[in-house]
């Protein structure tokens, strides 16, 4: 579907608009929501015969890709993100078309994408949970990521921490993670801190976040994050793992329960992945759920896991949601 030769972005179209014929293929009822301003578009319903290269525009850029492939149309582009993406580009000079497959969701839309681009997320721990969470948030278009971890890459990390390769063993995780993530997108500002979170630095390191992702591997650090999260009223997306199980909850969101209510002090038990063992897919699933909940918080999507604990069992694929 995503044959690059079929696709043109709003910015590319703007640069080439004098040489391309733009054809609006939308039914009349769709045209009001996103008018195609600044382009001399013709309506396909009027029956057009075009020589030369042309650009088909539908509402979100999905219908036109299908039209081109099914009809094997030559010299024809589909406008990525469709009229929705063009409208934003024309009015705000922002090309958001790379996220068109998520802005088409009514729950996200252009306004939600702008919130993501302005969002700041601190990820504490760039291991099994932090790697997938960082990757998912970056590709979703989060504007600012702060990766906090003092650890180095170990060979035993690689099966569940896909940002690292054998050549990275003994290197600082946050430095390698930043390099790998930067290759995926230049749209996110990535800040790194190559020390562990502790009582001395936590206040400063977490101060500028809209959301904290708890991707740490120990309860002591989690309790510290919980205190800061509660005091500063910055929601924290908790994630934990035990063998084939994972837990996720949004804590301290506008007074919702925190980790100290979820597991009152002093919690005992609970082995780390290094001790208990884990398949790499589990942190992948749980880290992605944490990223999903962070996106919901930033965009303002309900329902979410505020005040709830999700337990996912990868063995039988059951989920349990418990009101905290």
């Amino acid at each position, binding site marked *: 579907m995503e044959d690059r030769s079929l696709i043109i972005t709003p910015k590319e179209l703007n640069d080439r608009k004098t040489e391309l014929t733009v054809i609006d293929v939308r039914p009349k009822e769709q045209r009001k929501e996103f008018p195609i301003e600044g382009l001399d578009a013709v309506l396909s319903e009027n029956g057009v015969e075009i020589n030369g290269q042309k650009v088909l525009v539908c509402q979100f850029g999905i219908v036109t890709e299908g039209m081109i492939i099914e009809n094997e149309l030559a010299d024809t582009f589909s406008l990525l993100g469709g009229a929705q993406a063009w409208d934003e580009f024309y009015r705000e000079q922002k090309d958001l078309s790379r996220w068109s497959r998520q802005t088409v969701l009514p729950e996200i839309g252009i306004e939600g994408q702008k919130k993501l681009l302005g969002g700041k997320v601190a990820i504490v*721990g760039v*291991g*099994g*949970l*932090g790697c997938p969470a960082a990757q998912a948030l970056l590709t979703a278009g989060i504007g600012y990521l702060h990766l906090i971890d003092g650890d180095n890459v170990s060979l035993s990390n690689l099966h569940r921490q896909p940002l690292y390769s054998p050549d990275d063993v003994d290197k600082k995780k946050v430095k390698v993670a930043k390099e790998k993530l930067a290759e995926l997108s230049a749209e996110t500002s990535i800040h790194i801190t190559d020390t562990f979170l502790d009582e001395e630095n936590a206040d400063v390191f977490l101060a500028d976040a809209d959301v904290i992702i708890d*991707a*740490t*591997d*120990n*309860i002591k650090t989690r309790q510290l994050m919980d205190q800061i999260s509660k005091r500063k009223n910055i929601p924290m997306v908790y*994630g*934990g*793992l*035990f*063998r084939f*199980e*994972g*837990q996720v909850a949004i804590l301290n969101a506008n007074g919702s329960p925190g980790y100290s*209510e*979820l*597991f009152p002090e*002093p*919690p*005992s*038990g*609970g*082995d*780390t*992945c290094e001790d208990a063992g*884990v398949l790499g897919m589990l*942190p992948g699933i*749980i880290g992605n759920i944490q990223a999903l909940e962070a996106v919901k918080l930033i965009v303002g999507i309900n329902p979410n896991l505020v005040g709830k*604990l999700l*337990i996912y*069992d990868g063995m*039988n694929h*059951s989920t*349990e*949601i*418990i*009101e*905290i």
Partner: protein
Amino acid sequence: MKIKVKCFSQVKYALGENEIILEMETGSTTLGLEKIIREKADGKLDGVSLRVAVNQQYQSEETILTDGDEVAFIPPVQGG
């Protein structure tokens, strides 16, 4: 009365079951059920703190159970 116990993480591994059905006396409580579960675990849950939920609701205090209740015992997990 019948109580369904849902087992998570260490509880599941200690008992070897995802869930078990227990016959209990009327008026039994979550605390009494936790004692039974710890006895069944035969020491494997010693030192493991457990939170309890009844019918998908956390309970911060001892709660009287009724027939058909679903009770979950949830230990903290670390991971990462």
